[in-house]
């Protein structure tokens, strides 16, 4: 399922460097995530199950169709001051593993052109006149690895 997507996706930037991007909001900042990463979006129906001894950027676990999926608290993960508790979950597939991202509000699905240099896996872009940061698989993967190494933890859960 995931394999045809990158192929399809890679076609598009070549002809046009626009990419279908899911735009969400954490705190007062907007972030864009390539739609190809996204498996599903949904409202958080029940509270998250806590992960023992987890740092603040790990929000907890959810049961998604019988599968245990860890969820990252994106406000802590992206170093943004949160505006409200709870919110919506963006389920992504990261190198064959399912991972939930707890965001405050999924706002739009748009074609976005990446502009400016990539810095630590985050690239600046503009969305409706406001600055937006685009994050991708590599950034999330790298950041998770780095954070886990900092606290000497093997895995998220």
């Amino acid at each position, binding site marked *: 399922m995931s394999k*045809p*997507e990158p192929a399809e996706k890679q076609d598009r930037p070549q002809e046009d460097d626009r990419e*279908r991007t899911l735009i969400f909001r954490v705190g007062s900042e907007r972030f864009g995530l390539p*739609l190809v990463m*996204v498996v599903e979006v949904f*409202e958080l129906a029940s509270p998250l199950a806590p992960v023992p001894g987890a740092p603040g950027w790990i929000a907890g676990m959810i049961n998604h169709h019988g599968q245990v999926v860890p969820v990252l608290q994106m406000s802590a993960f992206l170093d943004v001051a949160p505006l409200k508790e709870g919110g919506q979950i963006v389920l992504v597939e990261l190198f064959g593993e399912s991972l939930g991202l707890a965001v405050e509000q999924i706002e739009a699905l748009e074609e976005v052109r990446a502009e400016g240099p990539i810095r630590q896996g985050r690239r600046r872009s503009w969305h409706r006149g406001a600055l937006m940061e685009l994050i991708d698989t590599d950034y999330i993967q790298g950041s998770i690895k780095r954070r886990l190494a900092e606290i000497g933890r093997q895995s998220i859960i």
Partner: protein
Amino acid sequence: MRLLYKILIGYLLVLLFPLATWFLIHSPDRPGWIQVTAIAGAGMAAFAATVWWALSVGRRLRVLAAAAEQVGVGDLTQKIQRRGHGGRQDELDSLAASIEKMRVNFLQMLNTLHSTSSQANSSSSSLTELAKRINVSAGEISQSMEQIAKGADLQTELVTKTSALINEMARSIERTSRSAEDAAKSSAEASVVAQSGSQMAGKAVEKMRGVFEGIEKYSQRVFEFGERTKEIGNIVKVITEVAQQTHLLAINATIEAARAGDAGRGFAVVAEEIRQLAENTSRSAERIGGIVEEVTVGSEEAVQAVKDTSQHLSEGRDQLTSIIDALENIVTTVTSGSDRVQIISRLAREQIAGAEQTVKAIENISNVAQKNASSTEAVSQAVEAQSRSLLDVTRLADEIVALAGAMDAEVRKFKLEKTDE
């Protein structure tokens, strides 16, 4: 027997005794010498008897002379001795008796004189004492009279002052009376004004009640409107939620469509349209929500404003009610004040009349006091005259004392009792 006879008898004795002797004894038988001796002896005896008798008379005369001498120097103590025989008394005896009688009478007179003198002395002393006392009393009377005179002067002065004060008081009472009348008029006017004010305030309260009811109705409407708006808000929330869920579903549909590849392209377009629709709905709902929020805030403010206004109106009504009460109080107070002022005015008039009478009475008192003062002067003069007379009396009494003393001194020159010897 009289001294003459005694002298004659003595002479005869001296002559006859020798003669008788010669006659008896002359005889020749007898010697001569015996006869001569007998006659000489007889003569000698007669002579001796005569001498003895003369000496006796002389002695009695000396005794009498000594007694007279004693009386003469004032010694009346010695009684003059009489001879024992009562029957035969000669001139010397009667002389002695006369001297004795004189002494006794003299003594009685002197005693009487002495007692009279002491009586005069004591009477005079008590007279002097009395005069002194009277004089002291007169002095006291005089002082009292002076004080009375001073008191009368003071009284007159005070009466004058009091009269002036009362006149002044009467004038001020008159002014008070006039002021009270003015006050009565003013208070009557104030009463009328307060009454009309009270009526106007009552009308204002009635009108205010109407306004109040209108505002309450309006407030109710605004509140209902606010409630409805909240309902709209709730509906909008539901719409927003539905739109968001639709949005998420559309995103998921888009993802699924992308995964379906070419087969999903048509579906992807539909999903995208649904997503955009949901987005629009969400945006519209958001705007409606904002408007609803503004409307809610506005209506809440309106309700609050109406409540505040209502509160103010209520307070205003209360204030008006208290104003009415106050005005009614003013009317009653002014009415009773007016009554009181009239009473004051009447009393003041009565007081003026009373003050006039008082002035008259005080003038009478003043006249009486002046009369008193003049009477007092007359009494004072009489007392002074009395005092002077008493001085004369005292002086006379002193003179009497002096005279009595002198007399007594004279009496004392005589020896009246035998205390010394």
